[in-house]
């Protein structure tokens, strides 16, 4: 019973992880850049919903467009003001550049919002739970899981079924060939950042419903997203979906596993350690990920 419950909870949170990791994998696929600041986009998305809820009394779920828009603008701005210049330099400079962006946004949030932990306390679903059969779900988590799934599906549809989406895919597969076909790769790069920022903004808006926002929250989720992306294969979109769910299950199952074998040491403090370890083992043993396409 405990196991099945953890499994279901894991799937719900995993859907959210998949949405967080989606932007990372799209950006990586299109331009081979790892965006360390991805977690900070999430953090700012969380704050966006928190403050709209705080000042305007808008329900957190209805404030999602705010966080999505903020994420998209952030993505676009960082592409045009930073990433374009980084692309000319060596790989090490690209890594440090996005790292700098991460630090900047972290401390900007610290400066603007202080280091306090903030959580939403008013909203339609906040504090409510629903029982389905013998299992009890928190309303916010249920909503987060379902809305993540919908957002993921929309982006997936966009990438695979629309012309612009296909152009983006083409750029990811072969940049030069795409240029010859008349695709403006610079615009595609920008689009990738808009999608990346927008999706992670939505994810942040969903996350704030049941998780604290604080300036350093990003690093934890970006590491989880890295694990998902590595597991799914860098750049793979289908892969990251399954990987997100898998990581969610892993994270929820681990404390249960510790409980089952009656160990104090393997408690919930280590649930994220497992994610880091999983990343390490995956990239070492199977660098192309479980469903990889780009090596």
């Amino acid at each position: 019973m405990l196991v099945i419950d953890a499994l279901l909870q894991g799937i719900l949170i995993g859907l959210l992880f998949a949405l967080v990791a989606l932007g990372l994998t799209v950006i990586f696929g299109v331009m081979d850049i790892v965006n360390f600041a991805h977690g900070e986009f999430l953090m700012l998305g969380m704050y966006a919903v928190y403050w709209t809820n705080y000042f305007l009394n808008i329900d957190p779920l209805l404030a999602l467009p705010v966080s999505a828009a903020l994420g998209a603008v952030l993505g676009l701005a960082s592409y045009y003001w930073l990433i374009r210049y980084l692309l000319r330099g060596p790989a090490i400079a690209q890594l440090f550049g996005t790292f700098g962006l991460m630090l900047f946004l972290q401390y900007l949030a610290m400066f603007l919002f202080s280091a306090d932990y903030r959580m939403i306390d008013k909203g339609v679903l906040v504090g409510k739970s629903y029982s389905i059969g013998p299992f009890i779900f928190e309303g916010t988590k249920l909503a987060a899981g379902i809305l993540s799934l919908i957002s993921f599906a929309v982006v997936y549809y966009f990438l695979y079924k629309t012309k612009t989406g296909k152009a983006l895919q083409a750029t990811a597969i072969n940049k030069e060939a795409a240029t010859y076909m008349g695709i403006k790769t610079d615009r595609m790069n920008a689009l990738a950042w808009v999608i990346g920022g927008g999706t992670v903004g939505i994810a942040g808006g969903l996350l704030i419903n049941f998780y604290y926002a604080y300036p350093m929250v990003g690093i934890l989720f970006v590491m989880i997203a890295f694990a998902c992306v590595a597991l799914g294969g860098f750049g793979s979109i289908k892969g990251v979906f399954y990987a997100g769910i898998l990581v969610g299950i892993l994270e929820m199952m681990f404390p249960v596993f510790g409980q089952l074998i009656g160990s104090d040491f393997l408690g919930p403090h280590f649930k994220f350690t497992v994610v880091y370890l999983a990343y390490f083992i995956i990239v070492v043993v199977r660098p192309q990920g479980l469903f990889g396409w780009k090596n």
Partner: protein
Amino acid sequence: MEKLKDALDFSDFSKTERICFIIFTIFLLVFPWLGVGSFVKTVMIQFMLFSLFGMGWNTIGGYGGQVELGKAQYVGIGAYTVALMMVWWKVPFWISMPIGILIALGYSFIIGYPLFRLKGHYFAIATICTSLVLKDIFDNWNLVGAAKGIELPIHEHPDFLYMQFKSDTYYYYFIMGLFYIAIFYMNWFRKSKLGYQLRMIKDDEDAAESLGIDIRWCKIKAYSIASAFVAVGGGFMAVYNLYIDPASVMELSLSIKIALMAMLGGAASLWGPIIGAAFLVPLDRFLGSWLGGHKGLTGIDFMIYAMLIMIVSAYQPKGIWGIIEQFRKRGR
């Protein structure tokens, strides 16, 4: 003997550089006697400590070109070995520090072997992961004090064996000694076989492999040299601060600082990490203490810091030393 000669031989630097180096050395030697306050002295100690870290990072990150973001775990290993051995068995610093280095070396070989199957982004993220795993373990391991950390016993009288002094000046000269050993070592390293092999690997891995260089083994060696450097600094941190916890010696931000200083000053050059530390440590400390007095301004120092990183990586990935070189070329 030959190696020692190489280490002390600075003849391939320009005359200006050699003169600057001598002036700098004299300055460091007389610095504690200039009547400066204890705060400034602490900043100087920090500066040399971080130069030491940066020079270590430079072997793998600068000459080897591998983006290594997990050095904090070796600071932790060095610091914890010294602290724990002193608390549990009263082992003097001079014995526990070498043991710390050995543990760091052993650990770096174990971690390095799988780690160097990876390249680029994969590698960078994996180094962060290993560091975070170790920090999580130390954060929850009651035997080593968990997140509370451990305090080192304070001796009543100054004790050379346990590196406990009343005045910071002694620590100053001790870290200065380490700092110069590191400079001479790096001066030898950049001319050594491994140094050349690493630069070859950085430029073109396939070409290096076709010349029969064992890439993975070279990287592991450089990685463990870097780890040993950092572990020495960690040991020093333990006896200097007399208190360590995972948040101060194993935090990710420490790894980033280490890599950043070398990178900002100029990776793959002898002076780079020193310039970077000379720039960032005072900025960090003075700005931090100045802003600390003004409520509501927390974070500004790091924002300036982060802006610097972004500007440097976008416009001059070779760092401050790269800019100096550029000017010198133009002057010629």
